[in-house]
């Protein structure tokens, strides 16, 4: 399977420096993928918060093919992050209707760890700190879980360390980043970089970046975007959730969706972002 190849070596052989090449990739891949099943197919997905029974997702429809870059925008509380969390199996939410098919499998039947091992990755908006567990220990444990899933031998501490060091350069962090406890005492920027480091180490068929740009300064944002660009291949896809244009300019999504009241209210391309910036979400979502 081509999918499993992309997991081990997310990106080393094909250097892409200019972001716009991705759009070419995206087009080619999208064309090729038409004959195949979509990477992710969400149909009429409905979900509520377990504790309060409040319905948040009210019929989301979304199709992502291999190699595509999607962005979801929308005002606060429209359900963007809930959508991402439901996809990765967050226990705070319960799916009440609809279906999600990922790589031809019913995603909703899988445990969160099985979803991850299938190649679904989500960067957390505010990643939790894990005192007492070092970053390299955590990364290697996760990477070995994935290798095991792929039928590859697990890496020992030494091999693992050199693999991690290689990935560390992608996010422009110093080696001591690995010795620190997972997210403990990390600045906002360091936490976001750490999420991308995890993505680089683990690889993914579909990476969901939930507000990866929030709280990042200009330099950190550029680092994160360039790392993501290097990780992307024609075979894997990206879904980002954001409020800001800046990261869209850096990652060039092929599809932009506006979410409103638990649904995708409108889908377009980057040009729609101009309309949103000019007129606000209300007007743009009302245009459907």
């Amino acid at each position: 399977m081509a999918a499993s190849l992309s997991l081990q070596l997310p990106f080393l052989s094909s250097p892409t420096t200019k972001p716009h090449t991705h759009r070419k990739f995206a087009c080619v891949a999208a064309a090729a993928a038409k004959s195949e099943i979509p990477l992710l197919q969400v149909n009429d997905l409905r979900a509520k918060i377990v504790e309060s029974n409040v319905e948040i997702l009210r019929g989301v429809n979304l199709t992502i093919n291999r190699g595509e870059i999607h962005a979801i925008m929308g005002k606060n509380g429209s359900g963007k992050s809930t959508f991402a969390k439901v996809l990765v199996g967050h226990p705070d939410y319960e799916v009440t209707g609809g279906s999600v098919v990922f790589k031809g499998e019913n995603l909703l039947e899988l445990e969160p760890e099985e979803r991850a091992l299938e190649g679904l990755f989500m960067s957390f908006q505010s990643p939790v700190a894990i005192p007492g567990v070092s970053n390299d220990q955590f990364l290697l444990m996760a990477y070995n879980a994935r290798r095991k899933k792929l039928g590859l031998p697990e890496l020992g501490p030494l091999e693992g360390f050199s693999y991690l060091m290689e990935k560390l350069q992608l996010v422009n962090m110093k080696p001591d980043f690995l010795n620190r406890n997972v997210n403990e005492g990390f600045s906002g920027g360091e936490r976001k970089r750490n999420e991308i480091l995890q993505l680089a180490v683990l690889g993914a068929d579909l990476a969901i970046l939930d507000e990866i740009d929030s709280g990042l300064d200009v330099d950190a944002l550029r680092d994160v975007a360039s790392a993501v660009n290097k990780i992307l291949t024609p075979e894997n896809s990206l879904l980002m959730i954001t409020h800001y244009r800046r990261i869209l300019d850096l990652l060039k999504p092929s599809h932009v969706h506006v979410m409103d009241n638990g649904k995708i209210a409108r889908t377009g391309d980057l040009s729609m972002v101009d309309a949103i910036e000019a007129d606000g979400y209300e007007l743009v979502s009302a245009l459907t």
Partner: protein
Amino acid sequence: MSGIALTPTAFNPIIPSSSSSSSSSSSLKSHKFIKTRTKLTQFNNNAISISSDPFLLNLAETLEDSIPTPQPLQKLREASSESLLSTPWPSRRDEPFRFTDLSFLRSSHILPAPIPTTTTTTVTPPFSDDDDQFPCHISFIDGHFINSMSKNLEFPDGVYVGSLLNLSGKVAERVLELVSGLDGGDLFWSINGMAAPDLMVVYVPEGVRVENPVHLGYLSLLGSKDGSKDLYISNPRVLVVVEKGGEVDIVEEFSNDEENENEFYWSNAVLEVVIGEGGKVRHSYIQTQSLLAAHIKWTSVRQESSSTYELTEVSTGGKLGRHNLHIKQLGPDTVTELSTLHLSVGNQTQDLHSSLVLDHPRGFSRQLHKCIVTHSQGQAVFDGNVKVNRYAQQTDAGQLTRSLLLEPRATVNVKPNLQIIADDVKCSHGAAISDLEQSQLLYFQARGIDSATARRVLIFAFGGEVIDKFPYSSVRDRVRSQIKSLLDPSPKLAPL
């Protein structure tokens, strides 16, 4: 009023008063309790708190008869027997024992563990492979100091490590001043004082830094099988004196032989530490007794000005593990750091009663206590008292206790408490009791790690914060692997 009391108002002092018995001291000189008993009965009518409890009288008598009294220990024994007889057996109604069940001790026939025979001294203690890190080793078996199993007790610069009975000259005088001079504690402190066969002394003269740690290995060999009423008690006692500017590391390890893993016994140890001005003691304490044993331990520390005391403890053994930790500040600018981890993986109680009394300015203290209870009949108890008295201005005292309860009905009773009378201080305390955090588990799962593995890693990491503080890698490694095997889903637990 400048006082702020951040403590439950009904807090009782931990040390039961034994002063009311002083009037009876003359009657105890004879050391024959049969006689004493008859004499004492007349006091009972006058409501003087002399025990008429036949169990305690019997116990005192047994202990008294078991060993000869070496002359230097005479004063200690007298004071101890006196307080033993004036202290009632603690019940659940007494605050310090509210959550700690001692009834199984009381229902036993308590016997002092005899001096081990030469054949038993050939055992290999579990900590014996640490020769590289601990060249200086003091061996106790069933509370008795075993010279033939101890090593490298000779030190330069006037450092003395050995029995009080072999000590002479000025150092002996100094030590003797301290032997019975420390403020005592409860009944168990007194039992040790009465029945300790010897006193091990670690003496560090002024300005001397002892390079190698002093390793104290306490091994319990003699136990009773299930069904027997006999309970062997051992009473090792150690005094550490560090004079002005001196430094020493103490490593205490309590364990049992594999042979008596399923046997019960009672280890009732006392460690006293006196740290002179600017001195420093780093104390490591590891307790891995049999899961059927009773382990009651006293650590009493006195800190002169600018001195440092650091304790790192990991206790996992015993049906009952109780650590009484008392620290008293004798001068300003002291530093006290206490890190403790208690683990209950079976039908066991792990109990820490700590008391830190600050009477002088600019003391600094940090206390971290962690408990993990992984069994529905397991229990952890913590009563941590920090007193910041009137003259202890600019004290910086922090206390935090965190407990993980991993099974339904697993129990923890924690009472962190600060009593603050000084008005210019920085004090904090906190208590958290929880299962593992869902958000942390999800983070592991979201990266492809299954929840069982994630739980194991998180539980281990919780304890790791304390384990990492042991100053010696061999101790850290041993404790880590020990805890790993206890947390393993298929632990080989003693039948409980």
